[in-house]
């Protein structure tokens, strides 16, 4: 029995399918593109024409890289005309279109070509400062544009020009992918480079590139001072030779140089300077005791100098210490300098106070007219025996078991 049902079912299907095949078909003329031109110049009037037999007015979808729009056509004696608006026809590049018909879709593209003329030069350059030596470069990008602000056709000639010191160079470059560019490498010298470009008779404005010196190379240092005495008052000035890079350019102003000073105690002192015309100067006050210095200057990680040695002669050979007023007033002085003159005010005098061999305090005072006076207030230093040591100009004097009362 199942076979019978199967046959019936198949028969039924065949019957049904015979109806479906019968379709009504009408032969009408489909819309067709008449316009054959696919390349236009920007600014030209572009009209797309279609032949049609119907009274239909399908919309035309039209798009370029700036955006898309819908256009309504004009029917004129079975010819459908679409005028591409100016905002599309003025811009270079491919324009694709599509007819939005209900039944069939017709699409295509045409190209707007730029004018082979230059109206303006769009120019970019960067970075605005590079380093001398021939490895660093700046990049010039030129976009010559026509009167409708379209980049000019590919392979348009652009002359990239730059002046540096005595040389003035012109290089021919060509536009590709809308732009023309050139990497301008620095020369061995530092200085100012002026850059411009020209295309089809139109010139760009002037651009400035600063070519600064590369990193410094080793240099020498020297010291000047009014005298060689360790008076703790005068100032020694260190200077570098003219610091240059490996191309012999003077390094940029402001280059930071550190002078390290190693004294006899192997302590590290330090002063710094910044260069002007390649010379850095740094100052330091004289020590107030006899000392020998080794000085070496560095530009961190890049360059250094030879070290130089400086001797400071002792200025005070000896001094007096006077105790009075129950030993509570201690007068140090006269402190006399190398010619017997009173030492300039401000020499540090330290008084270390010990009680039962335990350090209590250190008082520091500065000299005035060659003397320093310490007053030990009874409120702070109770009566009793003290040890004192006085230290100035590198000379220490010890006074044991002085009684305060």
């Amino acid at each position, binding site marked *: 029995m199942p076979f019978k049902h199967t046959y019936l079912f198949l028969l039924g299907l065949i019957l049904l399918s015979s109806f479906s095949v019968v379709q009504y078909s009408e032969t009408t003329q489909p819309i067709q593109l008449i316009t054959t031109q696919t390349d236009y110049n920007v600014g030209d009037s572009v009209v797309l024409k279609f032949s049609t037999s119907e009274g239909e007015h399908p919309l035309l979808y039209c798009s370029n890289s700036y955006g898309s729009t819908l256009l309504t056509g004009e029917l004129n004696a079975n010819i459908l005309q679409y005028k591409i608006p100016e905002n599309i026809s003025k811009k270079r590049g491919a324009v694709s279109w599509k007819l939005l018909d209900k039944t069939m879709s017709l699409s295509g593209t045409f190209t707007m070509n730029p004018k082979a003329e230059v109206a303006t030069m769009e120019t970019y*350059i*960067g*970075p*605005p*400062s590079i*380093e001398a030596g021939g*490895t*660093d470069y700046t990049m010039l990008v030129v976009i010559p544009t026509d009167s409708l602000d379209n980049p000019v056709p590919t392979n348009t000639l652009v002359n990239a020009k730059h002046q540096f010191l005595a040389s003035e160079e012109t290089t021919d470059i060509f536009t590709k992918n809308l732009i023309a560019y050139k990497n301008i490498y620095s020369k061995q010298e530092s200085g100012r480079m002026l850059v411009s470009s020209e295309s089809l008779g139109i010139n760009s404005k002037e*651009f*400035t590139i600063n070519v600064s*010196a*590369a*990193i410094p190379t080793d240099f020498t240092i020297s010291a000047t001072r009014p005298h060689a005495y360790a008076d703790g*008052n*005068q*100032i020694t000035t260190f200077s570098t030779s003219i610091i240059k890079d490996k191309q012999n350019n003077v390094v*940029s*102003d*402001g*280059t*930071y*140089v*550190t002078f*390290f000073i190693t004294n006899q105690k*192997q*302590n*590290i*002192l*330090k*002063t*710094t*300077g*910044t*260069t*002007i015309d390649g010379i850095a*100067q*740094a*100052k*330091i*006050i004289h*020590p107030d005791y006899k000392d020998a210095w080794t000085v*070496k200057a*560095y530009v*961190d*990680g*890049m360059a*250094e100098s030879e070290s130089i040695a400086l001797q400071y002669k002792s200025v005070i050979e000896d001094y007096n210490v006077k105790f009075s007023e129950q030993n509570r007033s201690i007068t140090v002085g006269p402190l006399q300098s190398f010619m017997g003159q009173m030492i*300039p*005010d*401000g020499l*540090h005098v330290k008084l270390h106070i010990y009680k039962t061999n335990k350090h209590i305090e250190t008082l*520091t*005072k*500065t*000299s*005035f007219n060659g003397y320093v006076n310490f007053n030990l*207030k*009874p*409120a*702070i230093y109770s009566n009793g025996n003290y040890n004192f040591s006085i230290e100035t100009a590198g000379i220490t004097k010890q006074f044991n078991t002085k009684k305060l009362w």
Partner: protein
Amino acid sequence: MKETSNKYLIAALLLGLAFHGSAIFFTLETTYDALIHLFFADHYANSWFEPWNYEWYTGFTVQSYPPLVHQSIALLSMIGGLKFGMFSVALIAIVLFITGAYRFSLLMTGNKTVAGYAALLAVFSSSFVETLHIFGQLPSIVGVSVLMHALPEIYLWLKTGKKWYLATSLSLIAVTVTSHHVTPIFGMVFFIFPLIGMVIMDVSRAQVNSMKEVTFKLFLNSFFKLFKRIVSFGMLSLVLIIGCIFPYWLNSKANPITQVPIPHGSRDNFLEITSSGLVFFLIPWGILLVLLPYIFYRYYSKRYLFFGLSVTICTILGTGGTTPIPLKILGETAFNILTLDRFTLWASILSIPLMGEFTYRFVEGDLKELIQSKFGAVYHRIIGGILAGLAVFMVVFTMSLNYFRPSQPQKIKMLPIVNFLNQDDHDKWRFLTLGFGDQMAWLSAQTNAMTVDGNYHSARRLPELTTRPIERLENSKFKGVAGIGSLQQFLTTPEKYNLKYIFSNDKFYDPILYFCGWQRLRQLENGIMVWERLNIPPVSSILPKEDVAKWLKIHWGIVPFLTVLIAFVLNIQMLWVNMLKTRFKPIPDFLKYSVSYHKFNRNVLRVTHIWSVFLAIILCYGLYLFYLKNDSQRSPENAIIAYYDALDFKEFEKAHQLIDPNSNLPIAQYMLEISVTDGLLSSYAKMDAIETEITQLNDSTASAKVTTQWITPLEKIEKIDYKTLSKHRKKWYLHPDDLNNDLPPDQLYSANATKYFNQGRRRITTEQTHHEDILKQPVLEVVSAKLVQYDGHYAIIGEVQNIDNVPADVILKGTLYNDDNKELATYNAKYHMKHKLMPKESTSFRINFEGIAWSKTQDSIPDTFNPDEFTPVEFEEQPTKFNLQAAGNVSGSDLYKSVVLSAINIKDKTISGNLFNSGIQEITIPQLLITYYDEQKNMLWVDHAFVKEGVRQQRKQDFEYPMLHAGKVTLINDDMTNIFVNGLPNAAIAGKIVPNRIDNHTTSQLQKIEHPNFSYIKIEINTYIGSPN
């Protein structure tokens, strides 16, 4: 019966308007709150229906404060500007207060003359004067005034049950709610509940013959009789309180105030902090203090019994932290949120009717007769004169308080700042003001630019602010170290908040700005210094906001004014009748309960006398104590404290007067010596505490050890001085300190330096800066960097060098990651680097990872906080990797490098030495950066120290630096792959400029030290120049 005009009320109104109306133009703008309300008004004037405000706190909602007063100012500002609006509303508030006081007094006493007296006295009530002219609390005044207007209507509704009175009373309650939210809530408790009690008393009284016959049973009966009216009024007003400012309640629920309580003077112990006692107790009470026995006597009579309770509670709560009772009654939370001066204000307002009554009885009533018969007419006149004199003194004193103790900085001309913000797109970044006081609100009202700060602390949202007990960043120095700590976080990572400009009206903050990497731009013509920070992105054009439903916005925009309109329509008729007597109207019920003043209670007079004498004794004793404390030369301690105070406030003449005259130090010389000392301690420190220990004392000399604590913007400094004093003619004098005699070698000398100027824009244009004018970012090289752990803190340390040919401003930003590359923390380098680098200059750096301080356990806020201290981030996971972003920008400022390390001495873990200034600028604050190295000269840690004294030109300054405690530095990661300079990989960009770097170049010049964990150090010096010239 023909009613006559109440000439007292008219006089009160005219006097009040003339007196307060002219005074507000001199006082209101310098009050604490008025400008804040002005800012809110500006918000409504610009966007009435949009509650979100972007200008403060990175955005907040104005639905956090009842809007009526602000909206009224905004509406009036359409006519004549914001300030016109504010003064107009203030005038309205004055009228409302005087008429309100009159109606409230009339209700209470039932006597028009007494009420007239009360209105007259209300004009000069010192609490009102203070609230208006010192605090500028306009919404509070409007709220309480309207509440006073509502009281008679409530009485009449409860008494008569006429629905009309229900409507009028509710309409006025609604206005109260929309102008101030706290007033109606507490008004219910302190004004309306006692009023209900009084109505029940009156109803009971009507049933019997005398007040004495009113028993509790009768009272209870009357209560049940009136129960329906009371409940209906209560429920309906509750509905209004919630409904009228529904968005406010919704917002409070959504954004509950979860902040650390901000200290308020009204919570102080008034006996300890006398200035708070003056402002929050003495002034608001004023002359009422003398009348206290009378007020309590009258308010504890049967009819007013409940007012008596209310006034008592208010009085007690108003004493703040003087007694522990307010804290116990209110509980911890409420005590710390409420400002308790409100209770004193309400107590004084509750007392107004009785003040009127007392005055009436004193001037023309039974009290006058009693006094005259007992003590004679002259005594009456003298007492009258004293009381009037006291009242006038209180008013004059209160009005001029701002003159003697200005609560605000000098008025700042805002126009230059507004112009600056409008220029050159400066308003595309957030700004911050420092030292502006409440005037910052006025600046915000005038500009569209946004600030990270704000002046309405309940609306603060950033955890950096809510976790600190500070109102504003703006005045953070007054909030001690917690304030400075909060400010530091904003200054160190300003890019998080798009904060680029700071307007500083206070030199105090300059060092912290400098050492956090900010630079001075210029001084505006109003003297405000503009600071800027480079490398900050502008605020994005779309900002987040918490939106609310549209109906809430419409509700908020419409309902407040609707309540006013309804109240106006319902009450104007009453007012018309009451004020202008245009038609006959039945006498209100409460007038039936007036008391006849025929016999003044002798005992009350006696108690008042005793009380007055008691007050006078307290006053005299207080003055005596004040004299003792301020008699600067009475004791050595006083002399020392006075001397340091004078120095702290830069009153050098006063300080000089305390110097021993025998030392023959002329003031000119003294001033000269003081004026040449500059530095952190002498120019930027505020004394926090002083402790004097007299080590030896006899009749004529004394020695003292003076320990002073100073708060500077950078760190807390403890200084110990030993002073000697001597006594001449019963006065103690200090001996002057020794001078530094250092004499520089040169009189005139020259210095050459390279200076830089960045044009910004070469062409004047409104367009964006031309691309060719944009400078290249200076190339930096991170020479070394590693993630280390020391003493429980994680830090990125290393060395960075400016390898370009132009000076650079350097900003370093470090980020820590765990093994799974999960970001754990981000922070910028703060003090531990030189932010400005000359070409080829290098600096050591350390990036600390600071958390938002104390955000976890609010109770662990240390009492004494050191601004230099920081809260390390609590890491949930172990940081193992780091990323370092270095950004350079060309900067020509703060490039002073002429500082020399001229001597060094290492002894017992202490490094001492001399700094020498070899240039031509005075160094205000030298900073030492100390880098520690191990035996192999590998960098381990970076520390810093500020030298307390400045260094003058060609002079030496000694310093002392204690080395770090022993402790091992653990190296966690020294992989340098994730280091970027101006967004480019460090290794690649550095290799181009310095291809053959001499590694560890200057390590041969490291200073050897003796330390268990470290072997070498390097000292770098950074300088802050306070006034470059």
